[in-house]
């Protein structure tokens, strides 16, 4: 879209052209003493305008230029709180890109973000944990900082509240490429309750043989959190075959903790 405005009667003749998306400073040419402008739109016929009309036209045009320069039609929320709320709403309507964006904000420490904003991100992902599972795991694989993993675990706990969610977590525990993602999944499975608990227990016992030491240890403590006494035998067997000294010591403690009840 081309928009050309000229002010032929002014001693300080000015001319400006704006192309959509280019961001030209259109309003700079407005001068209070001038009353009549000649406007050409897209090479069409000239149009004389009074200043008040011209100002309105310029405002409309500026808005069109601004909108055309934005990649999406949705307005950009201003505060983190508004941003999280908008993404939460998009996620609840099934927008998969919202899950990825929210997961990227797990434990986010950017300008203006507060504890409440970070907790809101976790709550939003947790409410749709099954849908958000791939995005959350991708976020952990990309940044396995302890606070990011902790926030991801809290979000994934939402999936552990149902049988279908637990099964999805169990599949990820077996097959995800990232050890950090598997570690987060193992920890989340420790929150399974009710009918989902047996499935979680089965998956976690399998993860006691994971090639990654952190995953094995997380699986052991997740079994403690599940509170299944029968897991004590599996933990004992894992302890006997464990070669990593630190994990072996941790397994000893986990067995004691499970015995505590």
């Amino acid at each position, binding site marked *: 879209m081309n928009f050309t405005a000229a002010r032929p009667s002014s001693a300080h003749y000015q001319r400006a052209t704006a192309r959509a998306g280019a961001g030209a400073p259109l309003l700079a040419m407005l001068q209070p003493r001038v009353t009549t402008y000649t406007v050409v739109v897209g090479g069409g016929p000239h149009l004389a305008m009074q200043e008040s009309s011209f100002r309105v036209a310029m405002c409309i045009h500026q808005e069109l230029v601004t909108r055309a320069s934005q990649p999406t039609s949705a307005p950009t929320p201003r505060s983190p709180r508004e941003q999280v709320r908008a993404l939460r709403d998009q996620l609840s309507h099934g927008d998969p890109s919202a899950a990825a964006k929210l997961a990227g904000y797990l434990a986010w420490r950017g300008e203006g973000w507060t504890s*409440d904003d970070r*907790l*809101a991100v976790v*709550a939003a992902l947790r409410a749709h944990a099954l849908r958000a599972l791939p995005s959350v795991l991708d976020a952990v694989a990309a*940044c396995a900082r302890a606070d990011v993993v902790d926030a991801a675990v809290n979000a994934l706990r939402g999936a552990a509240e149902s049988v279908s969610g637990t099964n999805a977590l169990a599949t990820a525990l077996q097959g995800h490429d990232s050890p950090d993602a598997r570690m987060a999944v193992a*920890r989340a499975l420790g*929150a399974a309750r009710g009918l989902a608990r047996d499935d979680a227990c089965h998956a976690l016992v399998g993860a006691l043989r994971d090639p990654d030491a*952190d995953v094995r240890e997380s699986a052991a403590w997740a079994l*403690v959190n599940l509170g299944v006494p029968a897991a004590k035998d599996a933990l004992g067997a894992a302890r006997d075959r464990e070669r990593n000294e630190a994990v072996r010591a941790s397994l000893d403690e986990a067995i004691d903790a499970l015995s*505590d009840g």
Partner: protein
Amino acid sequence: MAFYLRKDKLTTFDGGTTVDDAWRAQAKGAFTLRPGEESLSVFEAEDDHACDLVAAALALANQQERPVDILKISREELERFGTVERDGQGDTPIAAVNACHASLHTTQEQLTALAEHLRQQGRKVERRKWREHVLPVLLKTDPASLVGGAAPAAAVWLEALKAKRPR
């Protein structure tokens, strides 16, 4: 003397001093700023009791029985790699711990240098064991005193934990 605490993995800071590609790959997640992030989260502590309180608060935030591995960094060390600002912006359900939260304002390059410095010093994370260090603090914590959006769930978990272990 005050020091700063950061949760980390024992497998990353295990007392070894070798800084090679394998270790860098292992440590990559620990000291990473994502594009747009400006700081790293740490907690200020004066002594081991404060360290246990932080560990308990982190366990409570996750509502999980498990040990917590903590990396200790002195103020002098940390300030070589950025600016430390105590901001009280912790995300745990314990207000006293949140009040000790600080941010290390830094860059990715400085963070990488910090991680490699700690490794070259042979730094090892300190394990705060579940039954020995973390649980005793939690058993003394009043569920009604918990704060923040996670407080209701954390309080339920803490009550259940206490119910399993009557004093």
